[in-house]
């Protein structure tokens, strides 16, 4: 390396008894290359040094120019002298340059070097002393100037400036040697084999730097949060529902949930309807070939207790409970339209799948816990907090004699597992749950109550239509996956979390998710 000062520095030190100053020993080298040699030697205790900082005067580029070629006024004087019979003023810029002509002419007049004769300039003196240049040459040589007044004047004219000069006072260290021996950078198989590791010095490790970046794949942050929620559900004994079904019917997505057919959620403004294929079948048993057919998960000994599922009866019950009321309900009392029920939609919630699973449970009603976390679709205008797609987390508990206090108690345990320990519950409205409760959690970081989910007990109109007995009650609750994730990571725009606009660096560097740990 041309600028490697390691050995020259050792040479200079060994030639001198006293410490050396880098700016004297190596005046033409930039301090950065001195520093790198010092670091190399210093880390091996071969030298010791202290850093000296001092203010020095340096020439600006204009100052350098004057020091080399003379001041503007000197140039003007030279040009005037050179002209045989005076110099036409208008010729001056062409000879000395426009800037020199302007400033130099004025200064030369002031100093009495030249005089005006009509449109010509003539010399007013035989010879001149170019003081400005003299001063600058002194500064250039000594980096100082005795006369403070002149100094201030030069500074005002921007010919000089103050600058910091770094120098090092270097002395021999405890392990000083005349020569710098290039060390091995790493332990090698050869060194182990021939035993040279015993004598070979190893380059010291830089404990202030990061290690080599490791190549790594990464899972998506939202899926990492999803996995945490799945784990919470598994810990609490929940079975995952078959939500791999984006297209639903109006029946399962709405009617089965006792959402009336004129409900605003069913508007074109809110729900994606399907143009092709156009119309669904009424509910019927899934063919064996259906990949989403619910597999029996209960013990075989239990399965024998299953009653056959009567789809026609279910369809009729739903029709009846909407139009005329049934199961103790007066119903919505409007003419229910089968075609509306057979329209295909992109599911607006995974509750459609919960209805499907609960309907299967009605064949053999027993205590059960189900959950799902999957994509849902809303025909919403896209903004910072809304996308046409997001993930819904849904939990369902079915049992005989469930109480509202049990739902509250369960939510406390559920949310404690994600680090939320203070909850309160607000009465709310939802067409398919009654009572309905909005869940608010106290967010320590934000210092306020934040709505974190919705919950309730499914309405008897929905459950009894399926054939679930009156004394079996079912909790349902839901929250979006994106919202807690956005709060957790301080993400303000949902598009930074889901979709193709997500930054790959964000995915790659996002830490592991530990919901219970704030």
């Amino acid at each position, binding site marked *: 390396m041309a600028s490697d000062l390691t050995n020259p520095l050792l040479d200079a030190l060994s030639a001198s008894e006293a410490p050396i100053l880098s700016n004297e020993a190596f005046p033409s080298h930039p301090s950065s290359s001195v520093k790198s040699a010092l670091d190399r030697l210093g880390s091996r205790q071969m030298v010791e040094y202290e850093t000296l900082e001092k203010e020095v005067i340096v020439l600006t580029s204009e100052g350098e120019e004057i020091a080399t070629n003379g001041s503007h006024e000197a140039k003007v004087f030279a040009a005037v002298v050179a002209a045989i019979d005076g110099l036409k003023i208008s010729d001056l810029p062409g000879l000395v340059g426009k800037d020199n002509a302007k400033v130099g002419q004025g200064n030369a007049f002031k100093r009495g070097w030249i005089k005006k004769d009509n449109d010509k300039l003539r010399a007013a003196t035989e010879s001149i002393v170019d003081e400005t240049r003299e001063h600058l040459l002194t500064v250039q040589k000594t980096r100082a100037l005795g006369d403070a007044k002149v100094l201030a004047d030069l500074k005002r004219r921007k010919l000089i400036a103050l600058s910091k000069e770094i120098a090092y006072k270097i002395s021999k260290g405890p392990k000083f040697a005349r020569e710098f021996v290039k060390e091995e950078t790493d332990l090698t198989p050869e060194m182990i084999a021939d035993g040279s590791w015993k004598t070979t010095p190893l380059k010291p490790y830089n404990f202030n730097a990061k290690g080599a970046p490791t190549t790594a794949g990464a899972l998506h942050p939202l899926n990492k949060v999803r996995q945490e929620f799945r784990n919470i559900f598994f810990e609490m004994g929940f*079975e995952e529902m078959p939500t791999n079904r984006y297209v639903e019917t109006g029946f399962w997505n709405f009617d089965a949930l006792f959402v009336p057919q004129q409900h605003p959620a069913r508007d074109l403004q809110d729900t994606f309807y399907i143009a092709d294929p156009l119309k669904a079948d009424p509910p019927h048993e899934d063919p064996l070939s259906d990949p989403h057919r619910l597999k029996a998960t209960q013990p075989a000994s239990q399965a024998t207790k299953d009653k056959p599922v009567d789809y026609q009866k279910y369809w009729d019950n739903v029709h009846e409970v909407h139009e005329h009321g049934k199961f103790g309900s007066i119903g919505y009392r409007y003419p229910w339209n089968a075609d509306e029920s057979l329209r295909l939609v992109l599911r607006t919630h995974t509750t459609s799948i919960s209805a499907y699973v609960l309907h299967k449970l009605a064949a053999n009603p027993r205590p059960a816990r189900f959950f799902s976390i999957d994509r849902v679709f809303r025909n919403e205008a896209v903004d910072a907090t809304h996308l046409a797609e997001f993930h819904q987390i849904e939990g369902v508990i079915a049992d005989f004699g469930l109480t509202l206090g049990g739902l509250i108690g369960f939510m406390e345990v559920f949310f404690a597992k994600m680090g939320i320990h203070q909850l309160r519950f607000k009465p709310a409205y939802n067409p398919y749950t009654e009572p309905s409760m909005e869940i608010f959690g106290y967010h320590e970081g934000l210092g306020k109550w934040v709505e974190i989910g919705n919950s309730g007990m499914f309405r008897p109109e929905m459950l009894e239509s399926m054939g679930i007995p009156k004394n079996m009650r079912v909790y349902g609750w839901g929250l979006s996956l994106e919202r807690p994730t956005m709060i957790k990571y301080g993400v303000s725009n949902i598009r930074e979390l889901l979709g193709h606009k997500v930054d790959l660096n964000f995915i790659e560097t996002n830490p592991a998710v530990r919901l219970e740990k704030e």
Partner: protein
Amino acid sequence: MPTISIDKAALFKELGREYTTEEFDELCFEFGIELDEDTTDQDRPVVDGVQEPPQLKIEIPANRYDLLCFEGIALMLNIFLGRKALPDYKLVPPANGQLQEIIVKEDTTKIRPYVSGAILRGIKFDKARYESFIALQDKLHQNLARQRTLVSIGTHDLDTVQGPFTYEALPHKDIKFVPLNQTQEMNGEELMTFYEKHQQLSKFLHIIRDSPVYPVIYDSKRTVCSLPPIINGDHSKISLDTTNVFIEVTAVDRTKLEIVNRMVVTMFSQYTSEPFTIEPIKIVSEHNNETRVTPDIAPRTAQAEVSYINECCGLSLSPAEISNLLTKMAYRAKPSINNADSIDVEIPPTRADVLHQCDIMEDVAISYGFNNLPRSFPSKSGTVAQPLPINKLSDIVRVEAAMAGWTEVLPLILCSHDENFRWLNRKDDGNTAVKLANPKTTEFQVVRTSLLPGLLKTIRENKAHSVPMKIFEVSDVAFKDLSLERKSRNERHFAAAFYGKSSGFEIVHGLLDRVMSMLKSAFMTAEEGLNNPAIGDSQYYIKELDDPTYFPGHSASIHLRVGGKDHVIGAFGILHPTVLGKYELKYPVSTLEINIEPFL
């Protein structure tokens, strides 16, 4: 959920005390409405030199139509606080016993078959009451009436018109009148053109515009009262000085018709000369057996089971205690005489949301306080914790891909038709993709049938990232499938894309091999696969593929043999440069996409 804005000082005066924002927020929370905003400390608009007084903006549950106006909120909160009892609404016929009538013509069945109405006598408006009266109609039109499609309300100064009224349906050219706040007379057709550009009314025209007949209400002198659901006549308009208000309501939904009528009359009958009295009218509608006297404001009676309420709430309250709690929610309730497990409940005409005893049970719980209910923990379950098998399989593939150094991405499921087909040099055969009917943008035209568009868009949006980029996704696509109830099915795919200065063909091939080996599938050559059917349990082989998505000679189909059966599970290859062009990618890309369901 609707949000309504009410005058803070006026409400607190009605409630008999001042509340801090926090106190009022707490009251709302317990009652089940939500204080959105208190504008006290905000810059409030100045109208005609007067600054708007502080407002409370309150979010109302979508089924509580009785809370859509100042009068309703003040009343229901006062009842909840125990400061007031539910008023005793009364129907009072006129002194001469002669009810005002609306005679319904049969032709109305062609367009808007139902009508209802009522009269409020001796009402005393002031500016606030008048504005609230108009605002309630607006809110009802927007919410319950679904933008006037189901129900619409017309209100008239009764002293300007002369009953009996007729509700008719006539050809649009035969209806002539001066619409509200206009000066010139127009017929039905001209009226449609006149209001085409109107900011508020234009959106209602479609409800009747193409019908051969328009609904119209006349008085006995053939004065047009209204052309529902568009506009009233100017002749009978109400003002601050109106004292007798004739309310007519027309609808296509009978149930909502009566709910709307009840809401308007119960909320505003408190301002009549004898508060809470309503003068009924007679609807004469022989052709559809709808002749009756309206409004029906009799409370609905129902029985609620004490044991059911206690069980759901986890309480053991006496019938009397439950009855007391219910009064706070505007019911009249008392223990049944003959049945110790029953409470006789009168559901007030203001509560249209009560359909089942579960609604009554919820009100007991609200009245008791959700946050005061005894807490328990349901500990029984018949299910065993387990993942959905396809999700478990997906997780295996996801984790293996990530361990192999690839980054998981999560693009959207909906995409444009071009992204799914044309941009990939694929043709839509019309039998593949699920297509949306009403997307707001072209970004959401189809449910993807391939994971590739999402991966390629992710790369396009991440061009600032260092290369190579190695990304993958395991998620669902959907296909039409007419054999199923929902006429479509999802399929779980695994896809990966390599983007860099070299094609990465062998790299995605290597990823395929790695994932296959982790799924215990042995590699065999195509020849082995074709000639040797009994090589083991699960094997895969690849064959050169001719597919315009890929660069010629640089793509392969992936074949899986499980249990002696061959499935084509996907393909991989270098994308065709025309595909790259469409996705604005300047470096080569190799992709891999397989259906993982055969591995289940």
